[in-house]
């Protein structure tokens, strides 16, 4: 009996290794206000230290978030659409730490009539999110007028309208998750008050379904580990298993949904063999939707001379 007890204690010391350890932060701010303002080296240095902090706190997948206005004109050159150049800037960081970095664009939707099509822009980013700041913007984002993966709100401000269960849950039902950004609760008192109020209404409207949590970090100090996030959300009315799903499984689904939009045709046939999922496959990073590998041969191929031309 005593032995058994000791063994139990022992197993508590080292947390059980879950088969899939995946901790996702869907929102780390990309230090750029709009397409026209270039990013400085100092900003990149801060971002790099934020990423390192995230890695230390246990995150495995991090998404850089570039927030632009939906009505502002996107650059016409396809190369300028994604200014992040993740591989070039953070390639060594990704290699040494094993961190996986993705790109995300968040569109601030004010007046839906002045919006533009997302066809081009959704191809170069892994995730497309919407941030409605008006009632009509919210209607557009929730009714499926835009092809988005994630719905986020400005938690530092008063919400544009009262959130209805029907619209938010309808959105969740289609597979669009709702994001809570905890970074707002760490900045100043006013924003924190607003944050609490807004999160409460989001939790109420969505019946705590399909909620994902992300940091929205601008500097290393705004990063919290999973325990910290769980503690915060539990005080705001979510259960602890919902909290752990929020930055684990559901966030991974957002990544999958976003990735499959480019790497597959309507989620039927995807590029890559599938042994590693499209989210994790390093060969599919960036905009590539094609994977070239060495041919696999079985013994029968080598026995006879391979014939590839049709014989009919």
């Amino acid at each position, binding site marked *: 009996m005593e032995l058994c007890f000791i063994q139990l204690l022992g197993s508590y010391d080292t947390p059980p290794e879950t*088969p*899939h350890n*995946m901790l996702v932060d869907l929102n780390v701010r990309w230090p750029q206000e709009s397409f026209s303002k270039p990013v400085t080296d100092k900003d990149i240095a801060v971002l790099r230290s934020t990423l390192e902090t995230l890695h230390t706190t246990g995150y495995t997948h991090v998404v850089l978030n570039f927030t632009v206005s939906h009505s502002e004109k996107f650059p016409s050159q396809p190369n300028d659409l994604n200014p992040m150049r993740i591989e070039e800037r953070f390639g060594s960081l990704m290699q040494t730490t094993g961190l996986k970095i993705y790109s995300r664009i968040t569109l601030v939707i004010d007046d839906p009539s002045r919006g533009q099509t997302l066809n081009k822009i959704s191809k170069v980013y892994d995730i497309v999110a919407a941030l409605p700041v008006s009632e009509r913007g919210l209607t557009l984002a929730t009714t499926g007028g835009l092809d988005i993966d994630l719905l986020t709100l400005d938690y530092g401000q008063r919400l544009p309208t009262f959130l209805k269960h029907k619209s938010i849950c309808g959105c969740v*039902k*289609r*597979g669009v998750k709702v994001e809570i950004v905890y970074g707002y609760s760490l900045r100043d008192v006013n924003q924190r008050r607003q944050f609490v109020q807004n999160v409460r209404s989001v939790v109420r409207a969505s019946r705590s379904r399909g909620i994902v949590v992300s940091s929205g970090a601008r500097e290393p100090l705004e990063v919290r580990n999973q325990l910290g996030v769980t503690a915060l959300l539990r005080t705001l009315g979510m259960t602890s298993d919902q909290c752990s799903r929020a930055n684990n*499984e559901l966030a*991974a*689904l957002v*990544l*999958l*949904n976003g990735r*499959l*939009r480019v790497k*597959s*045709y*309507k*989620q*039927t*046939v*995807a*590029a*890559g*063999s*599938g*042994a*590693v*999922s499209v*989210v*994790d496959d390093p060969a599919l990073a960036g905009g*590539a*939707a*094609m*994977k*070239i*590998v*060495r*041919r*696999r041969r*079985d013994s*029968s191929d080598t026995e006879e001379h*391979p*014939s*590839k*031309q*049709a*014989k*009919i």
Partner: protein
Amino acid sequence: MDKTQSFIKECLFTKSFDNPNKPIDEDRLHETLLLMPTDGGQTGRLRRARSSLKINAENIKAQGNEVKHPNYRSVNKNSKIAMRDFIHDSRKASMEAKRIAADRKIQSKAELRQYVKDNNSVLYERLPKYDAFLPMYKDFWVSYMRDILDLSQDTQVGSTPKLNAEAALMRLSMADYNGSRLRVTHSKNKNMIGIEGIVVWDSQKTFIMIVKGKLVDEIKSIPKRGTVFGFQIPINEEEALEYSILGDRFKYRSVDRASRKFKARRCDDMLHYVLQEN
């Protein structure tokens, strides 16, 4: 006032106006109004008949759809039964051959084949043979795929083929996978990972494959649900394009798939695919 007008007044206006004289009094009626006898709808009918005889794209299509096999139902049913019998029979044959191998302590495939051929020719006929299906993949399917993707010429080793990646994916989603060589690369059921074979039949919910074994070849039916199938399309001697079928979204018969409009759906059921063991 002529004869026509009195007829109109008596037969029509009495029904639609309180005072049948009203339109006439107000001068709303033409003086030279003519009423013609009808032919009882004969002309309309003739015109319709004539237009249906005319040949245009719509007509041909409509007729093509109507033409059916005289005993389509029974043929369909019989083919299903035949397919099922084939699967069951080849499974039984594989089992029997395995038992023989265990009894006689036969280690190699060729030896077992020879033994069965000499001693039990009926069983030999029933055994599924991978090599018999191999041309289906090698000669037909590979060239069919290269045709679809416009890859009829070999690309240079190390260079990327001229291919619109998106259009290629779309064509692949509508392609026929009978005869393809698929490999289970990921599945909810861990035991299925690694199975590789040539698709004999692409049914709605399963791929029926012939799998090469150490001693005997087997027919296996792999469910599409919860499974990811990988396949390669060779572009030259050394390299190949790699794609995967997400079985959860592929649960349609190949006939239905060709004309289907796919839609991206909520992918909560594909959670198993992202959370893979590393």
